[in-house]
């Protein structure tokens, strides 16, 4: 079911950073591995003890470093190894996601999901799903185009120039 061979040469390959909780989704990803379930290689996983330990600052920094899409995934509510980690995380994303949407960031670029240690299949679906969705959206140019300090912006009102972050 992998899309690796089917893709034409110059197709845009989205860059996805995934913040995973160590007990459930990371184990789910391992399970997909032991099951030899292929999926696209666009994701880079950053392991953290719990989704409750994921700070919205991480997402902003990930976008600044050129990510086109971000996946945040952990244990299903109730399954958290630390009892309430994912509940607090869910509450955070309940307000942070609309804030980014309000500022004009397409919410499909950030996906939140619950994947347990037994759901290797769901992990593969989630990854292929987000890679395809972000591939459709195309590279996150508007964020990456936020120039750092191009020569042109030495004046007051800065206009976006081609320098990438």
């Amino acid at each position, binding site marked *: 079911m992998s899309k690796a061979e089917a893709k034409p040469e110059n197709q845009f390959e989205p860059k996805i950073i995934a913040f995973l909780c160590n007990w459930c989704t990371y184990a789910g990803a391992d399970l997909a591995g032991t099951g030899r379930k292929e999926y696209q290689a666009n994701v880079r996983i950053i392991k953290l003890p719990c989704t409750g330990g994921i700070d919205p600052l991480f997402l902003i920094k990930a976008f600044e470093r050129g990510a086109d899409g971000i996946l945040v995934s952990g244990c299903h509510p109730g399954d958290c190894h630390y009892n309430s980690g994912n509940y607090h995380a869910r509450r955070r994303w309940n307000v942070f996601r609309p804030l980014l949407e309000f500022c004009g960031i397409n919410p499909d670029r950030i996906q939140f999901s619950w994947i347990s240690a037994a759901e290797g299949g769901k992990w593969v679906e989630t990854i292929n799903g987000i890679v395809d969705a972000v591939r459709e959206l195309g590279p996150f140019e508007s964020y990456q185009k936020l120039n750092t*300090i191009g020569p042109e912006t030495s004046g007051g009102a800065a206009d976006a120039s081609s320098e990438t972050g």
Partner: protein
Amino acid sequence: MEKTLNKNNFDSFITGLKKQGYKTIAPKKDNKLVTLDEIQDANEISLDHVITNNSIKEYFLPKTEKILSYTIEKNKVEMKEPEGFAVKSVIFGSRPCDAFSLPVMDKVFNWDCVDKFWVERREAVTIVTISCDKFDSYCFCTSVGLAPDAKQGSDVLLTKISNDEYLVETVTEKGENLVKELESVFSDPPSGTPDRQVATVEKKFDIGKIKPWLDDNFEHDVWDEFSHKCIGCGACTFVCPTCHCFDIVDECSMTKGDRVKNWDGCQFKMFTMHTSGHNPRNTQGMRWRQRIMHKFKYYVEKFDSTLCVGCGRCSRVCPADMNISEMLEIIETEAGK
């Protein structure tokens, strides 16, 4: 050289500038505020304001500026000089107080070693100032030795002589060249002495009394009392045309980085904070003292000019209504006792 410029010739003046390859910056209405911004054609210019919200300092010491960029391999580093930061441009419609801030700050940026970022921009930009025909209660340029139609710092000075005629006086050689380049736009000087419509700003305090009082009043409780309401932000220092303190930080990803010069201000508590946590200027009173002392004593002693042009922006923008001219009036009365 003296000329006159008619208001409806502004359009051809701006297009002429564009043809000559100048980037034009002029006051532009931006919902509640009037800010100096790049314009494409003349009708964007708005002139019915007292003073723009941002000062022209932004075009010589930008709020953030790359002074070096480098790429890092494992242990090999390549440095790259930023180029093309000095863009040939004309600032049209600055005020005499803003314009005067440039020669004041030239002294510090050429002291002992020359900051090329400041100096190259200074050469590339020509200042066309319009004298003030309006003022508000925050202006106190006359108190610091300036005037609503002062020429220092500008290359060309426009002064209103009728409701759409401006008297053009070139101040520097650069100004003359500019006027020569756009000969067609200007017309001959008016015969006789034109009636210059210039605002009359009355003096608020005598600058002469300030420095002597400051010399021996480093410890005084007016510093604390006056600055209780200050919230320690950087608004006053950032909008001030003569505040030039900056910070140097590196912003980098894993393989490349930029060394950046950012605005910084003495009112922030972090400005003098040592890594150990010791802070020589620990309270807001000390920082407020530093601001007044630097402008009216230290800079005078070191470069023989007051680091304040009386534009009043800091008082207008201050969240807690700390008024600098009021402070100087208090100092004057204290000096009188």
